[in-house]
């Protein structure tokens, strides 16, 4: 059992939890993920590690309530226990040896981009971070990103924070202003990572993206997380989750993401029903 030692609401849909998991905390590195289960009938969901504290033995996760499991998780409180928490899984990001890096976070992807920006900053790279959200209300981790970035641009789709635009537009502007990046890291919705990768390909800038497909075990056993990279099938759980953005078949990844849409909907409806029942009782 794994105790929730801290819970923080970052925006109406996104929550942060610090989980007591000493073994995982000891080995965790940016780019890796964990798999958790809330309860006995629960599914195993992968979440990227947002931060870790080796001394305290804790691992931080940040999640958006999009499906039943993340909703159930969001309802849990400090002091509650997760049934299962396994990791660190996947290959850690290779961040050594870069001089100047643009780190792009789209929405919740910012939570995953943050540990990478932090690590790059620690390694002495010049970090330019660009994070984008639908509106001002959804902005997360602004202060944290500020601390680890030499430059931070926060953009909103609707301009409600005073800086309207997509992260790709911001990146393009920085590149055209003469910033020479030797790496771009893009983490966020598949469509965002695709558009960023298409852009950086034109400029010939190496680009890493973080894939988060459907998976069960996270150890290479099920193959549910298949991603086509450079025409070859890779398993995101053991070969990734980071891949070369110029090689990933994003269209296939987007189709595969739709695999359980109808089941997710049904699961959520049933969950809402049960909650409704509780309130009435």
């Amino acid at each position, binding site marked *: 059992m794994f105790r929730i030692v801290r819970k923080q609401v970052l925006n109406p849909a996104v929550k942060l939890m610090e989980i007591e998991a000493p073994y995982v905390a000891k080995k965790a590195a940016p780019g890796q993920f964990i798999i958790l289960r809330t309860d006995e009938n629960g*599914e195993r969901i992968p979440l990227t590690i947002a931060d870790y504290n080796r001394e305290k033995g804790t691992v931080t996760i940040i999640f958006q309530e999009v499906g039943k499991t993340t909703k159930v998780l969001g309802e849990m409180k400090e002091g509650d226990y997760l049934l299962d928490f396994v*990791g660190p899984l996947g290959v850690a990001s290779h961040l050594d040896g870069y001089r100047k890096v643009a780190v792009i976070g789209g929405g919740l992807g910012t939570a995953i981009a943050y540990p990478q920006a932090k690590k790059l900053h620690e390694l002495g790279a010049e970090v330019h971070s660009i994070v984008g959200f639908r509106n001002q209300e959804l902005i997360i981790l602004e202060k944290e990103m500020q601390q680890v970035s030499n430059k931070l641009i926060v953009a909103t789709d609707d301009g409600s924070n005073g800086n309207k635009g997509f992260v790709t537009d911001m990146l393009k502007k920085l590149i055209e202003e003469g910033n020479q990046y030797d790496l771009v890291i893009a983490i966020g919705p598949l469509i965002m990572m695709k558009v960023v990768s298409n852009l950086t390909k034109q400029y010939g800038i190496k680009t890493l993206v973080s894939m988060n497909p459907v998976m069960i*075990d996270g*150890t290479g056993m*099920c193959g549910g997380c298949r991603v086509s990279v450079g025409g070859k*099938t890779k398993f995101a759980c053991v070969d990734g989750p980071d891949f070369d953005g110029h090689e990933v078949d994003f269209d296939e990844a987007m189709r595969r993401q739709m695999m359980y849409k109808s089941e997710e909907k049904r699961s959520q409806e049933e969950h809402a029903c049960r909650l409704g029942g509780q309130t009435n009782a």
Partner: protein
Amino acid sequence: MLADWGAKPMPNMSLNKVKIPEQDPNIRNKNFLEVALGYAEDMAKEEAQRCLQCKNKPCVAGCPVNVQIPEFIQLVAEGRFEEAYDKVRETNSLPAICGRVCPQESQCENLCVRAKKGESVGIGRLERFVADWYLANRESKVEKVGKLNRKVAVVGSGPAGLTCAGDLAKLGYDVTIFEAFHVPGGVLMYGIPEFRLPKALVQREIESVKQLGVEIKTNMVIGKVLSLDELIEEGYEAIFIGSGAGLPSFMGIPGENLNGVYSANEFLTRINLMKAYKFPECDTPVKIGRNVAIVGGGNVAMDAARSALRLGAEKVYIIYRRSEKEMPARLEEVHHAKEEGIIFKLLTNPTRILGTEDGWVKGIECVEMELGEPDASGRRKPVIKQGSEHVADVETVVIAIGQSPNPLISSTTPGLETQKWGGIIVNEETGSTSKEGVYAGGDAVTGAATVILAMGAGKKAAKAIDEYLKNSQ
């Protein structure tokens, strides 16, 4: 002498095994309850009396874990079921499991003298009977053993790991099993379906291994959270790797990444371990099309096919490139699958999976095969029949053509030698690897094989580890 002659009852000379009650095929193909229902006490005694109590015990030679077969069967015949259980358990930590999933027809029963004329003694059925009788009638008891205060780590809690751990615990070692999943059992939990091996029963058997003092730590992916070298630093004096064959093989044909294509591992894990057959009560779903194609001819393919049928598929095809004779699945499994209505497309090989515009499976293109000359495996090699391309309309495809060992441990352990295909290289007699104090066995060494072979390997390794530790004191 005369008294002895008189004491021995006449054996039951019926040529056939006492029939084992089974669920009707047309009922069971819609539920996940166990297919075979097991012997009642009188049936077990009657079957036990078919054993001739041969002095040279040919059957025992066929058992990878050396179950004292005539002895336990004699006790069954006499109605001394608890003693019969104890006799089996002397050498076999998981009798309820072996009684169900061992390929007895090619092991103990294959060597039974009775099989020369008629059917062999139903050794597997009797083993299952004594185990079930014990689980139903006795509490599993804490088995006290003298402690040596020496730590051994076992990686993986499948049949190899459980057997090795159980045997070492009986010798007094402090054994900790590290399991990657959230429940112990390995392939017994994620791979073999409920209707062949009820999961509650697997957990009961694991409970009895724990009663020997074995500790099981779940959610621990060795190779990630701890390396083998770190286990050694933590004071484990020897390590047994029984991490199984977890890496699914795909065919490498176009369309394998379409929605609706599963590896057998994923398909069965969703259903067995994550209980997708109870969705939405359980959260993990599985997609079952109206028609389902399973590619492969082994036990895993049979399990996947029969599961698909139970989850409501109208037609389920087994697509296998050789003929029925070459099928690696157990006869009993093929027989059960046929009874339940699985359609066998033999001498047929898929060439392409066809998809809709938005990426869902809509069909599988196959060619017909004919058998040519024997290949390296001794089986006649299938060759394509010209102009035989055809398409079957299916919405789900499950690839069940084999699994290879998971590289997570070997890739993070310097000094651990493996075969090109991933199998850990061991000394066959002892299970020792190229790394001192590290042993391995089961599918991690052989590639996908059987539960009982894995148990046999776990057993050998336990003995070798004991000798190694005694000598390194």
